[in-house]
């Protein structure tokens, strides 16, 4: 039995020291050692009505897997999670646990359990020792096409493969993984881990075809003509939204997606020797928008002198990652809004003009809008600017190429039946392309739910 004072405090996750972080893109959170994992697992109260489970979108049996950790059965613990979640090593790292499972664990004595840290520990352990492939149902002779290889597409693919269907995933980019591959940086989610998790999905029998843009290379109707009996669209919300202010097409101005694509997918941080794709980060970097923490931390690692995020209300991201970014030197300026960007004679960005914001009069519902403070305009000099506001769904696949799929014109999302996730006869959709930008775990959940309805649909057709 642990002593009470030990029990109160969460075992801290070991991290790369701040001074070392900026010289590398290596992962910052190092993961628990076996000893640390056992100590953290020992803190769990094994609640009979565990709120942690309620708060996990996939209802992972948290006390159950933690119990296995305590017994030293790490592989079994991982398998328990993997039954519900095909990517535990990813979720352990990137789930916003403080709003999910860990929030549910608030009512124990002392700090909540670091559930993500333990999930990651067992998942990494299993990946190292080799993942065993679960039993796969006998072939049903039916084929399903999946559009997009992000978490939604991959989880749908994994579930359907386990049920004996033949599954082919089509991915537009040259590497699978969606945001896990092109969006979330190496220092938060090593690409090696993503590759291992995708390998697991492949080993379930799923075929992944890259470099195929559905809607261009093949249409959804083509897929049906080729014999696929159902299609799942998990094409994500990867389209950037611009600010609509003067100067945003100046040289040196990136969208968040371009910045992250160059770094994560194209490995521009290794330019010119390890990668042929360049990126320009010089001097001071202004990040415009609440989604900018990943870009800000990447910019510091690419040699920026100073990086400042300008945003309105609240940064998007996990608390741990925001804390780490601030430790690394990312500056924050809330309650501000860019007005225009100014360039030099060669059309390179030089200055960002911003305005301060304050809460306006509350409306009928009591909500206040932020309004510009008159005369509070100020300038920030920057040689690189990243626009990190919103993303909209990528519906290239659906528009015009699929039978009767409807798109919400305003939100740009695919309209589905909320229960079955069916968008049209035989066509299903889920993840960010339906919800708008959300989270990895919600995308995995949508993929699983769609797989259930696709399975039911296939058994009837």
């Amino acid at each position: 039995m642990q002593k009470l004072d030990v029990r109160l405090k969460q075992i801290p996750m070991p991290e790369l020291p701040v001074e070392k972080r900026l010289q590398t893109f290596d992962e910052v959170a190092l993961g628990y050692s076996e000893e640390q994992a056992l100590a953290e697992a020992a803190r769990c109260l094994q609640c009979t009505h565990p709120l942690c489970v309620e708060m996990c979108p996939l209802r992972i049996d948290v006390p159950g897997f933690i119990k296995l950790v305590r017994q030293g059965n790490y592989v079994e613990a991982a398998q328990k999670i993997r039954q519900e979640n095909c990517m535990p090593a990813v979720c352990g790292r990137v789930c916003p646990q403080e709003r999910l499972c860990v929030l549910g664990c608030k009512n124990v004595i002392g700090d909540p359990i670091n559930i993500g840290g333990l999930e990651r520990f067992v998942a990494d352990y299993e990946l190292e020792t080799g993942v065993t492939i679960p039993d796969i149902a006998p072939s049903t002779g039916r084929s399903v096409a999946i559009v997009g290889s992000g978490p939604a597409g991959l989880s749908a693919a994994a579930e359907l493969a386990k049920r004996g269907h033949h599954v082919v995933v089509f991915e537009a980019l040259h590497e699978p993984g969606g945001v896990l591959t092109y969006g979330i940086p190496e220092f938060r989610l090593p690409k090696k881990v993503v590759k291992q998790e995708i390998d697991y999905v492949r080993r379930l029998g799923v075929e992944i075809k890259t470099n195929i843009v559905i809607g261009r290379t093949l249409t959804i109707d083509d897929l049906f003509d080729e014999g696929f009996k159902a299609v799942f669209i998990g094409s994500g919300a990867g389209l950037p939204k611009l600010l609509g202010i003067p100067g945003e097409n100046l040289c040196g101005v990136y969208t968040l997606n371009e910045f992250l694509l160059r770094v994560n997918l194209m490995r521009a941080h290794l330019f010119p020797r390890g990668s042929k794709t360049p990126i320009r980060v010089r001097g001071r970097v202004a990040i415009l928008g609440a989604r900018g923490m990943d870009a800000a931390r990447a910019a510091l690692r690419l040699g920026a002198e100073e990086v400042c995020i300008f945003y309105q209300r609240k940064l998007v991201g996990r608390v741990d990652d925001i804390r780490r970014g601030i430790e690394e030197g990312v500056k924050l300026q809330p309650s501000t809004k860019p007005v225009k960007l100014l360039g030099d004679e060669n059309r390179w960005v030089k200055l960002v003009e911003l305005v301060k914001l304050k809460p306006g009069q509350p409306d009928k519902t009591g909500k206040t809008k932020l309004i510009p403070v008159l005369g509070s305009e100020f300038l920030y000099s920057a040689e690189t600017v990243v626009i990190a506001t919103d993303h909209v769904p990528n519906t290239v696949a659906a528009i015009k190429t699929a039978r009767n799929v409807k798109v919400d014109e305003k939100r740009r999302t695919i309209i589905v039946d909320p229960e079955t996730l069916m968008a049209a006869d035989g066509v299903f959709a889920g993840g960010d392309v339906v919800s708008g930008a959300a989270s990895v775990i919600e995308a995995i959940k949508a993929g699983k739910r769609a797989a259930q309805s696709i399975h039911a649909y296939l058994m009837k057709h």
Partner: protein
Amino acid sequence: MENEIVYKEELAPEIKLMKVRAPLIARKAKSGQFVILRVSEDGERIPLTLIDWDPKNGTITLVFREVGATTKELGKLNVGDVIHDLVGPLGKPGEITLYGRVCVIGGGIAIAAAYERAKKLKEIGNNVVAIIGARTAEQLIFRDELKGLVDKLYVTTDDGSEGIKGYPSDVLKGLLESGEKFNLVYAVGPEALMKAVSEVTKPYKIKTIVSLNSLMVDGTGMCGCCRVTVGGKTMFTCVDGPEFDGHLVDFEELMARLRMYEEEEKLAIKVMEGCGCRS
């Protein structure tokens, strides 16, 4: 094998033509569309126009000039080699309709694209005048093919080594001043040429289509690297284009954005050439 080079020809110094096995792209390709390719595992993604496609044999034809690290690396591949990644067809297809009398203009490496467009416009019955230009005579690719195809061909070189000394836009200007009429002018080539052509046709209010060469990464509308201002609005060349109304394009902005990585491009060539691998 997919992405395998099945034919290679040097059309002129540093200009190569390649036929590549890509049955899915060949089946869907339309005039004016392009592919994005990566030569190697650590390679950059670069766009190249589809110059020809053969759905029956499952091949596509690309023509490129070796200007930087990626195109030089591509030029080193031979028949039997495989291009690491190849995706397409991308971009909106061009409009191929009966306009009547059309002027097709191609400059430099883009003469290949101009030839492809002239062929399609001719096939459906347009009367086609072509003006092509290059720095020097030996760079005039597709000259003979065009001569046999179009109703009238004008040739220019910067140095006067063949045809008229000057630019294709000068020839167009002369034609319009002498009273020639066109229902459409289609221009593809260096930005400076497309800009000059658009300026020449503007006072005559002739519909002018240009095919832009913005920098690209994904080519599917995800990154906005290829954005360009057209008629005051921001467009993405890879999905809204690559063809736009030349009278509305902000060419100055486009040219500045194309120079964004000048220093890095030089560095990439240096690294490539200094790598010690003498082949």
